[in-house]
């Protein structure tokens, strides 16, 4: 019984820290793709999306993130657009991952204090906050990493006690992880190489390795490219280019290490300062791209400079380290963690990657950094002879760690505050729209004077369709993900913010107008559609309903 007390206490502690860090998630609502999922599930009334017609091979290959998506949809089916369960799942998932990482760290470092520190850093690291806050994929991302970490811990057990069952378990867990989300696929070569290293006797390693290298070289770049392309096709990546992927693989791990340590806002602030001082002429040469220069070039330069410094520290730690094999393993793990990102995010619009993509790399990063930290610390203790200096140094380091945790939590709060405000705005609008017109006619034609820019990510017409998805009066073709050929398919015109018009597909239709003249001109030609009109009035940011007569008076008003 006593054996379980400490883990239980730790789990509770990690949960509390996760809760403190991410408590704002409970105020967070749907912002982006969650609305699409919501619309589709409301129409289908099923956890299986419309584009889920998969063959058994597809299912086995983890296409469409089968487990993750089904679980996520199950929550959505039962809770609608209530984001509370997602917030809870994110926080519990984060706790579970921190807890598994604690065990991994304990196995690697053989010290509970370091393991706890690592788990806490993992929880509070601000860069990947989006993995938890982006509810459209949060469950997939978080539990994919959970199974990857479980796979990792099985691998470590296998390395320690050399029982083959653990390597089998490791592969199995990793497979489940990929069924949640493909972003942990990078662990496959690591698992394979470690298994090879452990299972093949030393004398035969050279022979087998030669055969493998020969095979790899024979297949060569073409094979690699083909693999990448199949990965591309399999997981629906866009804009794939092998050269870009290779360049990305060189750039991302080196630059990104500074993003883990320095908050994005601070990097941009430094970058702005750097650009203003270093390239002052760019301000007047090209004001239109100054923003891009700040957020991409300047951020990259600062990240690179900081990155160089960090990598020099890492190199020095490597020299001091007495466990070089483990060091190389963690270094390799960190680098290969970027393979899925290099494939998925071919182009960056700023100097930073999509925040949620960092999540699978977090574990490798914290382990690597603490490994460096431990090596340097041990070296420092061998140099410093006096006891009081040792105590002072240790105290300072503990204080530094605490400061980092607190700062990280503050950064996460800052980042989430923006998103919460956005989602709050969306939520308010949605409820105002519902209150204004709880019921809408079949094939509605919405009208909101100057209401084209109400929602941050989608055009108002499409959002209105999503909001009323449950009424079944909105065209299904608009809400389902497999209607690519339909003129109502969501990724077409209606998604755009400046869209207004009337779209028809077979017996279904939807219209949206934000311009009085456009509506009038449309209705003049289609007088028989007047019963489909649903009007709203936007007054000081609040939406009120317009009665049918009021809308008709707008339509019939003489110029």
């Amino acid at each position, binding site marked *: 019984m006593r054996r379980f007390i400490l883990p239980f206490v730790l789990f509770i502690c990690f949960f509390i820290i996760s809760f403190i860090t991410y408590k704002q998630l409970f105020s967070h609502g749907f912002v982006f793709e969650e609305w699409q999922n919501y619309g589709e599930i409301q129409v289908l009334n099923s956890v299986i999306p419309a584009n889920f017609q998969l063959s058994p091979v597809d299912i086995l290959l983890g296409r469409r993130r089968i487990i993750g998506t089904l679980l996520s949809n199950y929550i959505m089916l039962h809770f609608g657009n209530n984001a509370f369960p997602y917030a809870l799942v994110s926080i519990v998932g984060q706790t579970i991952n921190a807890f598994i990482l604690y065990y991994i760290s304990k196995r690697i470092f053989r010290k509970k204090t370091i393991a706890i520190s690592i788990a806490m850093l993992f929880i509070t690291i601000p860069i990947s906050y989006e993995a938890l806050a982006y509810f459209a994929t949060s469950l997939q991302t978080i539990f994919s990493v959970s199974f990857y970490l479980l796979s990792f811990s099985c691998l470590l057990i296998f390395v320690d006690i050399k029982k083959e069952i653990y390597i089998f378990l490791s592969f199995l867990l990793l497979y489940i992880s990929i069924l949640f989300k493909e972003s942990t696929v990078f662990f496959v070569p690591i698992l394979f190489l470690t298994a090879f290293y452990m299972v093949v006797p030393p004398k035969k390693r050279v022979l087998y390795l030669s055969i493998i290298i020969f095979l790899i070289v024979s297949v060569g770049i073409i094979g690699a490219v083909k693999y990448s392309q199949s990965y591309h096709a399999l997981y629906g990546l866009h804009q794939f*280019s092998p*050269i*870009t992927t290779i*360049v*990305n693989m060189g*750039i991302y791990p*080196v630059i990104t290490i500074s993003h883990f340590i320095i908050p994005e806002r601070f990097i941009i602030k430094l970058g702005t300062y*750097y650009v203003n*001082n*270093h*390239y*002052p*002429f*760019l301000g007047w*040469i*090209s004001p239109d*791209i100054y923003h*891009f*220069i700040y957020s*991409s*070039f300047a951020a*990259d*330069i600062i990240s*690179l*400079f900081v*990155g*160089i410094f960090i*990598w*020099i520290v890492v*190199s020095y730690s490597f*020299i001091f380290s007495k466990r070089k094999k483990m060091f190389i393993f963690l270094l390799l793990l960190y680098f290969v963690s970027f393979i899925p990102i290099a494939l998925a995010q071919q*182009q*960056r*619009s700023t100097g930073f990657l999509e925040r949620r993509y960092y999540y699978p790399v977090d574990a490798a990063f914290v382990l690597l950094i603490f490994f460096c930290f431990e090596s340097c610390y041990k070296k420092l203790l061998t140099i410093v002879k006096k006891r009081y200096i040792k105590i002072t140094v240790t105290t300072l380091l503990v204080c530094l760690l605490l400061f980092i945790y607190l700062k990280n939590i503050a950064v996460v709060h800052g980042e989430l505050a923006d998103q919460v405000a956005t989602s709050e705005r969306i939520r308010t609008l949605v409820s105002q729209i519902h209150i204004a017109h709880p019921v809408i006619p079949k094939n509605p034609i919405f009208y909101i004077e100057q209401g084209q820019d109400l929602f941050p990510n989608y055009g108002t017409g499409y959002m209105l369709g999503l909001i009323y998805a449950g009424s079944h009066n909105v065209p299904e073709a608009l809400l389902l993900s497999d209607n690519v050929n339909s003129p109502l398919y969501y990724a077409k015109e209606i998604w755009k913010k400046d869209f207004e018009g009337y779209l028809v597909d077979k017996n279904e239709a939807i219209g949206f107008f934000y311009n009085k003249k456009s509506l009038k001109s449309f209705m003049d030609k289609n007088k028989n559609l007047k019963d489909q009109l649903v009007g709203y009035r936007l007054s000081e940011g609040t939406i009120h309903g317009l009665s049918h007569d009021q809308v008709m008076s707008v339509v019939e008003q003489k110029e």
Partner: protein
Amino acid sequence: MKIFSKFLRIDTVFYAVLLIIILFTYKGLFKTFFQQDEWASMGIVLGHNTLLANFSDYSIVQLLAGNGRVLGSFITVIFDRYFPFEVAPFVLFALITHWLNALLTYGIVKRITRNKYIGFLSALVFATLYESSGALTWISAHTTALPNCLFLLLSMYLYFKYLDSKKNKYKFFSYVSFIVSLLFKESSLFMIVEYPLLDIIFNSQKKNILLLIKQHVVVFVYCAFMVISRYVQLKSLGANSGVFVTKDSNVFTSILLHAASYPVTSFSQTFIPSQLLFKVASYYQMVSYSFLNTHPLQTAIQTIIVSDILSTWLTLILLLGLGILWFISKKERKFLLFCVLFLFLSFLPFIAIDKPFSSYLDSRYYYIASVGAAMIVGAYIAAVVDVGKRYSLILQVILASFSVIVVLLFCWKNTQFIRRDITQQIFIADDRKNFLNQVKTLFPEIPNKPIFYVTGDSPGFYGLANLTIPFQQGFGYTLMVWYWKSGKIPAELLNNFYLWNLYEEGYKEENGKGFGFFWKKDDLIKAFRSNPNLRQQQVIGLFYKGSTKDVMNITDQIREELQ
């Protein structure tokens, strides 16, 4: 026979080979001509008519503190005074100095590695490196950057002698040589850090910081004297100082940023010709920052910011490679560390300068850095040989041969780039010489108080649409220098740099003499209207026909229009 065999020892062969390679690479320089600042130096020398022409603005204390680059300026004055409009003395001086610099690089690397061949390869890299070739291809830098580097290397070489023999006379001459180098140009100021570094890295005796400062107190005191003097001079110049140093209002912030970024970006740039880097940068931009692909400023951003990022990447890669060598080669660690630090530190004297519209500093600023680059190549080969030696003789031979081939190819490619640049310069020089000779042929004598009106039909030179003649400085000043012998040019105008700026025009009289230059006809007519003392006979009209490169006499036509 004994003397003959001594003469033919391998060192002598190396010296000869280096000389031949330098002559082969830079021989085209003899066919070049004055570019820009050379005209200003020449004008000052002619205007003052004394060997102390460049020093009248400075006090003795300022001159001793290196203001006015006293020694370099003095050599320039001698050349300009005794060989006017001749580039040959400058070029000869530059090539000899460059050769001596290569020999000193050879000597230093040989001293550190105890290997003549590695020393030779380093010297070869130094002699042929493209990125620093601006110090040789720009005549104005010949008498400053090159001897500055010569005495810097000499001071290092002598300090190594001191470390080997512990004889104080070497140390003394090393310091003297260092101070002399500063009197040529302030680029060697970073030796203030290098001296203690040499002690820390190569002196086996125990050392602490206070002892090191005490040991090099002469260097510290002189450098402090120099920096304070320069600061006072810049303060006194006020707004004009912006011509030489960073124009940013927050100078210290800029200097700090430059101190962090210049060494990092310039480290790799020293090895890589700018054309090549810009090409790769354009590709890198298209892959990593594709949102700029259609932007009109795409090229400018590629050559400035993207090249900066790429250079930093390349520095990181180079450091990684050198770090791996450092890790596996125990014997050459000191050398690797020294030359990497040397290369980084060599950029510190330039942190007060803003870069032009490019990621690269001006080419001549890489001259001292090229010694560091050459030493890095030497250290790389030495380390590779050392690593190979540990395993087998065959591996050692393979690694050494491979490295040598790579280095030779690198040198050959750099030589090609340099020769290509010089060929371009020769074309430009021919145009300028041709222009000036035609002017002299058309007007061997000029009237009193001459007023030149020069125009043309060229679409523009050096990217400037309004520039119709192939000169990159005020052509009025150039004409004053060119016609100085006529005795009709006012010396005061030359000394005050009248008409020096590119589009400057006007007319001025001093002490009964006068000179005018116009490139806009309207301005010439206005000048005649506003000054009734001007006569049509003073005017000389020239027209440059860009397609045939002919200068035509349009004097009569202009004089008629002025009536």
